[in-house]
């Protein structure tokens, strides 16, 4: 049975926790707005890019001269997994779901006898993967200092990945991130970026290409990698804030419940103590 003083301290500390989680929830809500706006603003570019690339890929992709970024190296022996997570915790299952998906993929690939390389973006994923997969780590991108994810960040990651591809370090690259659906639902997603995959091309109007289709494709493929990574980063950003918002909402509610329970316990103990003292006084008086 905790003493009255203990209970009182406990209630005070839970109240403080509730204040903090409440504040974090509100901050996350504000950041979510911004992250969502950024994701929406980036959509026209990504969509248009994808449409044009799909058209080009459909017409050039079959030929032998197709760029390696599209056609691949002809092997799938060495697989690069780019695991994109958050830099911070306290966001519910956000990081864990991504890591779980990546881990499943890595296990599957290893079982199939492939070589796995892991590039981590965001330190939370790195921490979670370290125990089992540290020997597969090939690099890490730190975004701790980045306040707002910009296209330049995506370009940096893309450049790293492309340089490795040029250097023959891997055959297939897949990115892992959380796709934002709503505040309560984020879908962990694996997306293959090298060799590039496109959704079925809609046969659009016949275009003149200047310079040639092949040259345009060669120019745009690396940019497309950056665009896909950028989209993933933005989706991740919105998902992180959404996940944090709902996690903190739950935490606030739990803290409230706990305060109620503790308060009842405190009142009961107080009353019990008073009753006990009264009984002592009365029985003392009767004994005389």
């Amino acid at each position, binding site marked *: 049975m905790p003493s009255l003083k203990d209970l009182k301290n406990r209630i005070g500390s839970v109240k403080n926790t509730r204040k903090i989680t409440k504040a974090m929830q509100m901050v996350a809500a504000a950041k979510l707005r911004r992250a969502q706006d950024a994701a929406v603003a980036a959509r026209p570019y990504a969509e*248009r890019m994808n449409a044009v690339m799909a058209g080009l890929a459909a017409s050039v992709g079959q030929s032998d001269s197709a760029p390696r970024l599209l056609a691949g190296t002809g092997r799938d022996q060495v697989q690069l997994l780019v695991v994109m997570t958050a830099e911070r915790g306290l966001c519910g299952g956000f990081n864990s779901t991504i890591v779980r998906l990546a881990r499943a993929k890595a296990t599957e690939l290893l079982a199939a006898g492939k070589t796995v390389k892991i590039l981590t973006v965001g330190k939370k994923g790195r921490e979670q993967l370290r125990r089992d997969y540290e020997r597969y780590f090939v690099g890490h991108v730190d975004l701790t200092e980045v306040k707002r994810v910009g296209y330049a960040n995506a370009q940096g990651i893309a450049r790293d990945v*492309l340089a490795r591809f040029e250097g023959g370090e891997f055959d297939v690259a897949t990115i892992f991130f959380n796709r934002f659906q709503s505040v309560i639902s984020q879908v962990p997603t694996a997306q293959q970026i090298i060799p590039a995959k496109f959704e079925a091309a809609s046969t659009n109007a016949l275009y003149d290409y200047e*310079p040639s289709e092949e040259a345009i494709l060669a120019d745009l493929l690396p940019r497309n990698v950056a665009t896909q990574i950028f989209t993933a980063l933005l989706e991740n950003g919105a998902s992180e804030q959404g996940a944090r918002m709902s996690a903190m909402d739950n935490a606030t509610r739990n803290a409230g419940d706990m305060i109620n329970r503790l308060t009842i316990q405190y009142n009961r103990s107080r009353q019990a103590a008073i009753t006990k003292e009264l009984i002592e006084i009365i029985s003392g008086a009767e004994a005389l």
Partner: protein
Amino acid sequence: MAVQFDLVSPERRLASVQATEVQIPGADGDLTAMEGHAPTITTLRPGVLKVVATDGIKSYVVIGGFAEISATSVSVLAERAVPIEEATPALMDSFLAEVRDAASIAEDKDAAEKTVADMMALRAATGA
């Protein structure tokens, strides 16, 4: 007598206006798109994009990307795009550094060097 002109960068939409003509710095040379232009897709070299809209002329510095031209619309997807008023020498220097960086890992050295040269010319033209 106008085409729908859109200029988008990965981060945002910079312009969406009715324009009578759009001068595009294409990779194989400048071209002007007006209503009824044959459908064309061209990549961009670093340069200045000029839009003659119904409410005046606007210029943008664009780097990388491509333009999709049809009879009734012009969409420019530029990896970097800023209104020319905002193109300070410092910004242009950072772009130049970026282009050089990209050139160092590019597959096609000739094309990359041309881009760097274009970028330097662009910097000289705007960084007065």
